[in-house]
């Protein structure tokens, strides 16, 4: 396994800057390589390989991989060959509903696309089969998991646009039937639905034995509600308008959003689903680092 040199200063790059880089693969490599460079003890690194066979030592082999017990019995040098566990399916379910187009500095969808690319790249490095599903109120694009689909996934991600209103439950329920093989499913969405509806849908994925990871992508304005001027607020998906005086409503709004996040966190914990809130103002690799740390922590506890 080759280790790329990280691009100096690429670590914790502002997502808005990353978004301006058109090549998703390069972005993913930039972020992931930089991340791995700093986290040698990542549980993904070599943890998922099993013993395959012994072969004779040839000069140049890493003596650390020599099987000393076989040498003790046979007095010959044998090298232990490990077979990487590349049978796992890694799929990203990306919400491309209209609400994902919102964002003050970076659109939530761009952030989510970068995140999806990074995760896919990461998984592909692990020899996982990678796939992608984009959905709004229905399924928009479907790339089945495959070890060769990295490019297709990135290309599909690149084409994804937020154009139609979304609905979380219906498409995920349909997808649950397609994920016959157990794998890792990452759902990236802004989760504008009641927590019960969200987990009714993703629960189906979890019940089929998949490892489900939820990335809740929100813009800072969605969290802080930092608007000042009284205005008409238009729902991006339904087109409904409401006259709003933000100063009068901000506190109540924030408490409702906090309650929503807490409810999602609580339900995720109950169903052994990884949940992570991502603020688009935060650097992407920081988010990935938090995610990998959480996965490691969860791996120990499970």
């Amino acid at each position, binding site marked *: 396994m080759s280790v790329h040199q990280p691009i100096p200063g690429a670590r914790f790059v502002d997502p808005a800057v990353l978004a301006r880089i058109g090549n998703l693969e390069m972005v993913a490599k930039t972020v992931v390589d930089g991340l791995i460079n700093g986290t040698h003890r990542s549980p993904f690194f070599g943890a998922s390989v099993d013993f395959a066979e012994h072969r004779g030592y040839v000069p140049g082999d890493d003596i650390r991989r020599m099987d000393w017990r076989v040498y003790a019995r046979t007095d010959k040098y044998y090298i232990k060959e490990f077979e990487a566990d590349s049978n796992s399916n890694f799929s990203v379910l990306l919400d491309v509903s209209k609400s994902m187009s*919102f964002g003050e500095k970076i659109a939530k969808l761009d952030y989510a696309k970068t995140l999806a690319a990074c995760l896919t790249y990461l998984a592909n490095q692990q020899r996982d089969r990678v796939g992608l599903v984009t959905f709004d109120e229905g399924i928009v694009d479907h790339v089945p998991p495959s070890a060769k689909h990295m490019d297709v996934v990135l290309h599909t991600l690149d084409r994804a646009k937020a154009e139609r209103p979304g609905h979380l439950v219906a498409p995920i329920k349909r997808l649950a039937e397609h994920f016959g093989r157990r794998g890792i499913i990452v759902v990236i969405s802004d989760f504008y639905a009641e927590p019960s509806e969200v987990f009714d849908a993703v629960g189906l994925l979890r019940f089929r034995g998949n490892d489900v990871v939820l990335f809740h992508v929100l813009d800072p304005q969605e969290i802080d509600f930092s*608007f000042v001027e*009284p205005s*008409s607020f238009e729902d991006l998906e339904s087109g409904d308008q409401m006259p*709003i005086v933000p100063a009068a409503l901000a506190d109540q709004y924030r408490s409702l959003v906090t309650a929503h996040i807490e409810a999602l966190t609580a339900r995720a914990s109950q169903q052994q689903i990884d949940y992570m809130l991502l603020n688009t103002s935060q650097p992407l690799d920081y988010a990935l680092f938090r995610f990998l740390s959480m996965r490691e922590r969860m791996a120990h506890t499970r």
Partner: protein
Amino acid sequence: MSFLTPLFLLGLAALAIPVLVHLTQRERKSVIAFPSLMFLKKIPYESVQKRRIRDWLLLALRLAALALIVAAFARPFLRGSEIAAAAGGAREIVVLLDRSYSMGYGDTWSRAQRLAGEAIASATPADRVSLVLFADNAEVALRSTPERSRAVAEINAAAPGPGGTKYGPALKLAGSALAESLLPRKEVIVVSDFQRGGWQPDDTLRLPGGTVITPVLVEGASGPSLALTPATLLRTRDAGQPERVTVTAGVLNRTAAPATKVPVQLEMDGRIVQTLSLDVAGNGSASVTFAPVSIAATTTRATVRLGLETPKGVAVQTGIAPASSAVDALARDNVFNFVITPSAPVPVTVVTPGTRGDANLYLTRALAIGEAPRFETSLQSVEALAGDAANRARLLVLNDVAVPEATAVKLVTFVEGGGGLLMALGPRASWPQGREAWLPATMGAPVDRTRGAAAKLSGMDYGHAVFEPFRAPRSGDFSTARFYSYRGLKAAKDATVLARFDTGEPALVEKAIGLGRVVMFASTIDLSWNDLALKPVFLPFVHQLGRHLSGFREQPSYLTIGEVLDITAAEVAAGATSSASRSEGNRTVLAPSGQRRDLAMNSGSSASSVALELLEQGFYEIRVGGREAGPVIVAAANVNLAESNPERMDPKELVAGVTGGGAAGSTGGQDVLPDEAQELAQRVWWYLLFAGILLLIAETVLAQRLSRATR
């Protein structure tokens, strides 16, 4: 403040526009796309709505500007009277003091005098005061004087009368007094107990513009309030017995407290005949019936009285009981006066040709039947008419009589003096040559209808008094009578054809001559030329003719104060002959108060009656001047029962009715300039428009500053 084009005020509805703009437009001008309103929709809507209007000053400026511009388009102006009222100055005060008999209840009158005195005392030396006393009618007791002491003296001298309350005449009188005044401020002070019955809304009643009406309510005393309702008389006549009458009196209790053992006494000609007592429930009524009494030959003055015995003489003259003996504090409605008149017959003289004594059998028998009136028939020969016989009758019937010259002269005098003449024409009937113009129609030759179909009556004038009872369907069929012969008639120009034959020729023609009437019937009134006498309509027809020609009118046993007594009709009902009621002497009227006055009879007038307005409670007596032989007419006058009803109206109702709901009328003499001219002279609209534009400029400046501050 008045408006020349008040419809423009509808533009004030445009005031809603700035409010709507402030409420809606502000939020709409910037639209923020937001991923989802999921959480915002959960927040109660009220908290979103409450703080919408932020720029109150801006909104107030816009509203004020708009209101001023709309008001300018409505062209406001002040009427002259309004300017005068606003400016102040001397007042023309008219005090209307109610002196209806209800004001005599307890100490109401003394309180009314005190309140009226206080109202006058409020006048300044520059003010002028008029005093109008009113009940049914209004009279000016004092006309526009600055001397307040005189007005107070007049008030102290006044006393409640027997009349009922009517505000209309008093307010009209006040209006005319104010219209003549040159003082800038006008005020009417109405001192009354404000009985509801006294006010009838009248659209034509308007006081001069700017007049202030001040109602002063005089609260009545509390206590029992009983009133007598009109007594009913039931006449009975047994054979060989004098006529008897049964009097039934009713008592109303106007208060909620029941009245027990209320004495009710019947007096006749000043003597107490019977005294009974009765109980009356609260807000209820009861009646009492006295034992029948015989009717005297002359008119009897009768009185039903609530309360104890009254000294003789007082009742006869005034009919009012002293307060000490009354059952309540209002004495006038405790007395009810009426007259019991023996039913006098109407004297009728039927003139026969002499040879046919039985010719008038049907007529005399028909006239002998009936009570109202009773006809007293006598038969005379035509020769006897030349003497004094005609003077003893009210009605002469000539049935197929040839009238000689001398008799004709007598008949003319008889009719012009008020008598009635019915001429039934047969083959012998004739009238002196040269006097035919006096008759309603000229007699022609007999028309023989014995061959072929007999003639029938048709074309009756059902609007006339003779045929009015037959107007309704199945109320008498004249067409069944067959006329075999009749005299052709040519009606005079001033005569009225009351009925015609089916050929169109006149059958019954009437003419009023002097005070009397003549009716010519083209056929006989017996069976010789027709069979009308055998038909059912004959009896009522003859009675109607007799009643009409004799001028008989049934006289009421009492009248209400304010009503008019028809003296002539009363004399006829009292049995006067035509000569007795002739206009040869004046009538002397003796009022209940003892006042005597003469009524001049206008002999040259064609009017057939003379009238007397009753103004006092009690009995009026009317005699023919200089002759005691004529019948004495006695008329009973009573107060209006409605006046004893204590129900009050809201004085504001009266004020609104006169001033048109606060907007003073413009019928006064002050508002002589038309509205357009007054508005043109004042040009208030110009100032309003200018102020509106200034406010709009200020609004623009303020709006720009606010806009900059927001950015």
